[in-house]
C-alpha cells in the first residue's frame, strides 16, 4: 500500500475512569475518501479531537504526512494540514461572509489591525477554490445551511489542507444539497485532499466513500473497502446484533377514518393535501427537506395552523391553533429535533415522561397526585425499556436511542388516537431504531393511527402501510410500499 497520509495506532483515551477509546487504529491514504461510522458514544468524536489536537491520547501515536507525534496542539495540526469542520460549522452568524472567511488566516498570521482590502482578497481566493458564488458582504446568519457549509469548507481549504475531517456534514441538508456536497468532495479528492467523513447513514457510506471504519463502544470493529460492505454487514458491525427486518402488515384497521384531511394548505409551504387515516394504519409521508413535509406535520399538531382546508377527527372538524388543541383531541407529535423541541435535557427522565399529561395526573386545581405520577413513570420506563438506573437522573445521561424512547413515552402516556412522528429515528443508533420500529408497528396493530414523516426511504418502505409523496408542497403520489421500491419513490420526490 502506498504511504499512508494519516496513520493512528493503538490510541487509548479515558476520561477519569471511563474508557472512551480502547487501542483503536485508523489509516487513510492521500486523496482517499474514508468514512468513519459508529453509534453515538462509540468514540468517533473523541478520535477526531485527538487527531486535530484538541485532546491528547493516553497512549498510542499519530503519524501524519510522514511525521510521527504523540501530542500535538491544535495550531500545529492546522499547520500540518489537518482541518476539521464541526457540525455547527464554527461560523459567526452575526458577521459577514468575508470576515468569517478571513479571520482564521488573519489570526494565524498574527495580524492586529483590520485591513479590509487584504481580507477581501483572501475571501475571494477562498471561495474560488470550490467555485462558491456568494455575496461576501452578506451576514452569514442569513445564508442557508448548505451555504454556511460552503463557507466552512472554503475556509478549511485556505490552509493547504491535506486532510479535511467532516463531522456529520449532511444532517441538515436537502437531498440536492447532499449531492452538491458530494460533488465538491470529489473535486477535493481530485486536488489530492483526503476526506474523513463521519456519518452513520448507510447510504452515504455506500455512495461516497472508498474505505470505511466502524467503531463500537470505543473499539475498532472493522475497517475495509466499501465495495465489500452491504446493509446487513453494516448493521451487524454497528451494533453487534443481527436484525431481521420485518415489513409492517396492518392487522387491525378500523372501518372509519380517525383523521381526515381535506385540501389542507399553508401559504408558502404546502397546499391541496388530502388523505384519510384509519386506526391500525401507518401512513408514511415523504419528500425532500423543502417539500413541505415538516410544515404539514406541524399543522397536524397545531404548532403551525393551516390556513386552508380542513382537518377532521372522528368526523368532527378540528381547529388546531396551538399544540394544546391537538393534545386535547388526542393527537400527539414526536418532533424532528429531539434535543430542542422534544426533550428537556437537564430535567429528569421522570419529569420529561409526564410533562405532557401532567394535568391528568393532578387534581382539578393543579395539585399533583404524587403516587399516580410515580406509577405512571414506572410503567412507561418499563414498557419502553428505557435504559436507566434511576428515572430521577437527568435526561442528558441517556443515549440518543433512549432519549427518543423518553419522547415516545411522553406521548404514549397521553394515550393518543393519532401519533405523528417526524423523523423518528434521526440520530438514533441502529439497535434502538429497530426497537422503535417494532414499538410503532405494535402500537398500530393495537389500534393506534400513526403517521411517519421521514426521508429515510428504507424506513418508510418497511414500516408503512401507505406512502404519500410530497413535492414542492403538493401531493404527487400515493403508493403501496409493498408494491414499490426506492427508485420509484425517488423519481416522484425529485
Amino acid at each position, binding site marked *: 500500500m502506498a504511504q499512508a497520509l494519516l496513520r493512528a495506532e493503538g490510541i487509548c483515551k479515558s476520561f477519569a475512569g471511563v474508557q472512551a477509546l480502547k487501542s483503536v487504529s485508523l489509516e487513510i491514504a492521500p486523496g482517499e475518501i474514508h468514512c468513519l461510522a459508529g453509534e453515538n458514544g462509540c468514540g468517533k468524536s473523541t478520535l477526531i479531537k485527538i487527531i486535530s489536537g484538541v485532546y491528547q491520547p493516553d497512549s498510542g501515536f499519530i503519524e501524519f504526512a510522514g511525521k510521527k507525534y504523540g501530542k500535538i496542539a491544535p495550531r500545529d495540526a492546522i499547520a500540518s494540514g489537518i482541518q476539521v469542520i*464541526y457540525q455547527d460549522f464554527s461560523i459567526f452568524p452575526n458577521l459577514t461572509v468575508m470576515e468569517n472567511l478571513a479571520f482564521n488566516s488573519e489570526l494565524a498570521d498574527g495580524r492586529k489591525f*483590520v485591513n479590509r482590502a487584504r481580507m477581501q482578497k483572501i475571501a475571494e481566493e477562498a471561495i474560488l477554490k470550490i467555485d462558491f458564488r456568494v455575496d461576501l458582504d452578506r451576514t452569514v446568519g442569513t445564508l442557508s445551511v448548505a451555504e454556511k457549509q460552503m463557507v466552512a469548507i472554503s475556509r478549511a481549504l485556505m490552509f493547504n489542507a491535506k486532510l479535511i475531517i467532516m463531522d456529520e456534514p449532511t444532517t441538515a441538508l436537502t437531498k440536492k444539497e447532499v449531492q452538491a456536497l458530494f460533488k465538491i468532495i470529489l473535486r477535493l479528492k481530485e486536488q489530492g485532499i483526503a476526506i474523513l467523513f463521519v456519518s452513520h447513514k448507510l447510504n452515504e457510506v455506500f455512495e461516497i466513500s472508498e474505505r470505511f471504519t466502524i467503531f463500537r463502544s470505543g473499539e475498532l470493529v472493522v475497517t475495509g473497502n466499501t465495495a465489500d460492505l452491504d446493509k446487513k454487514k453494516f448493521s451487524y458491525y454497528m451494533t453487534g446484533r443481527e436484525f431481521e427486518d420485518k415489513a409492517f402488515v396492518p392487522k387491525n384497521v378500523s372501518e372509519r377514518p380517525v383523521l381526515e384531511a381535506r385540501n389542507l394548505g399553508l401559504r408558502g409551504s404546502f397546499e391541496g393535501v388530502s388523505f384519510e387515516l384509519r386506526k391500525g394504519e401507518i401512513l408514511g409521508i415523504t419528500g425532500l427537506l423543502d417539500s413541505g413535509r415538516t410544515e404539514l406535520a406541524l399543522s397536524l399538531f397545531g404548532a403551525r395552523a393551516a390556513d386552508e382546508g380542513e382537518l377532521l377527527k372522528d368526523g368532527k372538524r378540528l381547529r388546531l391553533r396551538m399544540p394544546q388543541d391537538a393534545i386535547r383531541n388526542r393527537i400527539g407529535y414526536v418532533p424532528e429535533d429531539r434535543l430542542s423541541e422534544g426533550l428537556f435535557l437537564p430535567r429528569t427522565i421522570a419529569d420529561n415522561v409526564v410533562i405532557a399529561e401532567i394535568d391528568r395526573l393532578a387534581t382539578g386545581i393543579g395539585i399533583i397526585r404524587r403516587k399516580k405520577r410515580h406509577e405512571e413513570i414506572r410503567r412507561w420506563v418499563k414498557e419502553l425499556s428505557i435504559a436507566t438506573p434511576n428515572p430521577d437522573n437527568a435526561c442528558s445521561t441517556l443515549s440518543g436511542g433512549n432519549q427518543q424512547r423518553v419522547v415516545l413515552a411522553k406521548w404514549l402516556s397521553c394515550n393518543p388516537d393519532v401519533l405523528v412522528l417526524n423523523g423518528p429515528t434521526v440520530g438514533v443508533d441502529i439497535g434502538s431504531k429497530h426497537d422503535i420500529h417494532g414499538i410503532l408497528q405494535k402500537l398500530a396493530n393495537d389500534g393506534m393511527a400513526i403517521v411517519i414523516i421521514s426521508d429515510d426511504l428504507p424506513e418508510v418502505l418497511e414500516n408503512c402501510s401507505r406512502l404519500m409523496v410530497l413535492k414542492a408542497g403538493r401531493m404527487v403520489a400515493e403508493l403501496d410500499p409493498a408494491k414499490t421500491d426506492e427508485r420509484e419513490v425517488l423519481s416522484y420526490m425529485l
Partner: protein
Amino acid sequence: MQKVIKKLSRRNEPYIFVVLLLLCVLIEIRSGQFFTPNNLVDILSAAVVPGIFAVGAFMVIVSGGIDVSFPALASLSAYATTSLLLESNYQGGIWLPILIAVGFGALLGAFNGLFIGHFGLPALIVTLGSSSVFKGFMQGTLNSRQFAVIPPGMKNFGLSPLFIATNPQSGLTARMPVSFLAFLAVLIVAYFLLQRTMFGRGIYAIGGNEVSAHRAGFSVRRTKFGMYVFVGMISSLAGLMRTCMMTQMHPTNMLGMEMNIIAGVVLGGTAITGGAGSLTGCMLGTVLIVVVENSMILLGVPTVWKSVFVGALIIVGTGVSAVQVARANRVHVSKKAALKEVRQ
C-alpha cells in the same frame, strides 16, 4: 443609490435617528427653544458622562455579556483619586488626576476581567458581585463621604469652557465643557478598536459564537480581559469628569445609573444577546434618553413626570424592536420556503 437605501432600511440606526429627530422637532414646536445654541450645548453637556458609560456598556453587551458594575467602579475610582489628591494637597493640572483615575479603573476592570475573562464566569452575576464589592470597599474601607471642595486643578477643568453658546434672543448662555473632548476621544478610540483592530472584531466574534471564536484562533480569555480593563478605564474617566463638572465629590451620585444606560444602548439597536449593534446606534439611543430626561421643562411637563416618560420610552422602544425581530423571523422562514419553490 437604490442599493444604499435598501441597505439602510435593513439597519436599525436610521429609524432611531428619525425618532430622535421627530422628538426634537416636537419639543421645538412646543417650546421654540430646542434648536437654540444654548439648549443644544446643554444637551451635549448632559450627554458626556452617560455617553462614555454607554460606550463601555455597549462593548460588553456586544461581547455577549452584561456589565452592571460600571457606576460603582467609576465612583470608587473617582472617589479614591479625589481623596488621594486632596490629602496630598495637590495643586497641579488635570492630567495627573486623569492618569490616576484611569489607573484605578484599569485595576478594577482587571478584577472583572479576571473572573469573566479568565475563569469564564457569567458577566451579569460577576458584575453584580463586583458592583457590591466596589461599593462596599468605597463606603466601608475608604469610609467615603462627600467633599464639597475638590482639588483646584480638577475644579478649574470642570468649570473651564470649550466655548460658550449664546442664545441671541433670550441672552441665555451655556458652557460647553472641555470634558466633551474626553467624550469625543473615547468615542474615537472605541470606534477604532471595534472596527479596525482584530481585538475589536474579536469582541463581535465572541458575541456571535464564543466557541467558533475560540476555534478560529481568537484568544477569548485575553480579549475579554482586555475589554473589561478598557471598560474600567473609560468608566473611571467618566466618573472623574462627573466630579469635575459638579465641582464636588459625591460618592453615591452615580450609583443606580446602570440600568438607564443599558436601556439607552439597547434602544440604539444593540441586541441584548450580543454580537450585533453599532456605536452610532448606541450613541443615538443614549442621546434619546438624555434628551427626554432634560427636555421635560421645554415640553411644559413638570419634572416629576420624567421617570414616567423614560419608562414609557424604554417599553415602547424595546417593544417595537421585539415586534420587528418577530416579523423578520417569520419573513425569513417563509421567504426561504418560497425561494426553494422557485428553484425547483
